């Protein structure tokens, strides 16, 4: 099966651990080369973060377990890139 190269996840997390710690913890996982964490929305006790994880062979289950261990919840998996990176092109449906 082709390895996962990129995962874009929408997550809900408490303020603590901070977004910085979240990104650092996930970037320390095996197979992960880099993490981009963007704040989408902030609420009274929680934050909504878009997490873009890139690597040569990302283990999605490990990423999900780490997010949950840090107190977060995966809302949705918004993008997955497997195998070779494919350029996005506009289609008539867009």
């Amino acid at each position, binding site marked *: 099966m082709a390895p996962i190269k990129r995962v874009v996840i929408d997550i809900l*997390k*408490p303020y*603590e*651990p901070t977004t910085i710690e979240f990104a650092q913890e996930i970037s320390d996982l095996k197979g992960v080369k880099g993490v981009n964490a963007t704040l989408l929305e902030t609420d009274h*006790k*929680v934050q909504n973060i878009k997490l873009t994880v890139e690597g040569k062979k990302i283990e999605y289950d490990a990423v999900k377990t780490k997010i949950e261990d*840090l*107190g977060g*919840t995966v809302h949705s998996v918004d993008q997955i890139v497997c195998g070779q990176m494919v350029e996005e092109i506009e289609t008539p449906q867009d």
Partner: protein
Amino acid sequence: MSRIDSLIRELRETRAAFGDEEVMSISRRYFVGNGFDGTMTSIGIAVSSYLSGVPDGATVLMIIAGAAVGLGTSGVWSVWEIERAEKQAELKRIEDAMLRDLEETEVEERKHAGRRVNAFMSGLGPMLGILIPAIPFAFEGVFLSMLQAAAISVFLATTLLFLFGVYMGRISKQTWYKAGFRMGLAGVVVTVINLFLPGGAQ
């Protein structure tokens, strides 16, 4: 997770909690508040021991050791229970917002680590506050008289109170000597009150 892994994680989280400003802010209050209690108690013991005719420093040290055990245990135990309730309530509020159980997560472990640091600092304050002023009594009969030991003990306690004030002053960006003086004054007030207690004027 094995017991050893869990222990390593607890130690790592506890060490990290010492660098957490929110945890340290609460810990400082317990440390200074209970340290103040301990120091005041030691002044009371030092002055009243001398005035009521306690014959030697060793007896005073035994009284102070008893007080240290009492205050230290009280500091740790009460905060352990207070912070259990506070941190569980905070965790519950986060769980409600997250719509999930946060048991055995980093969030819960951080709350536990924060509680350990709070309780430790709460016990450390009175121990320092009561044991440092007790030191002169260890030298009574060697090169200090009871009067000298009591006087140095009160001086050390007042200095300690002054230092607590300086510490708080520096955190709050107040003038350090004014903050120190306000705390140190309490030591002088307690000493004077003790001098006029029944038995004190004998």
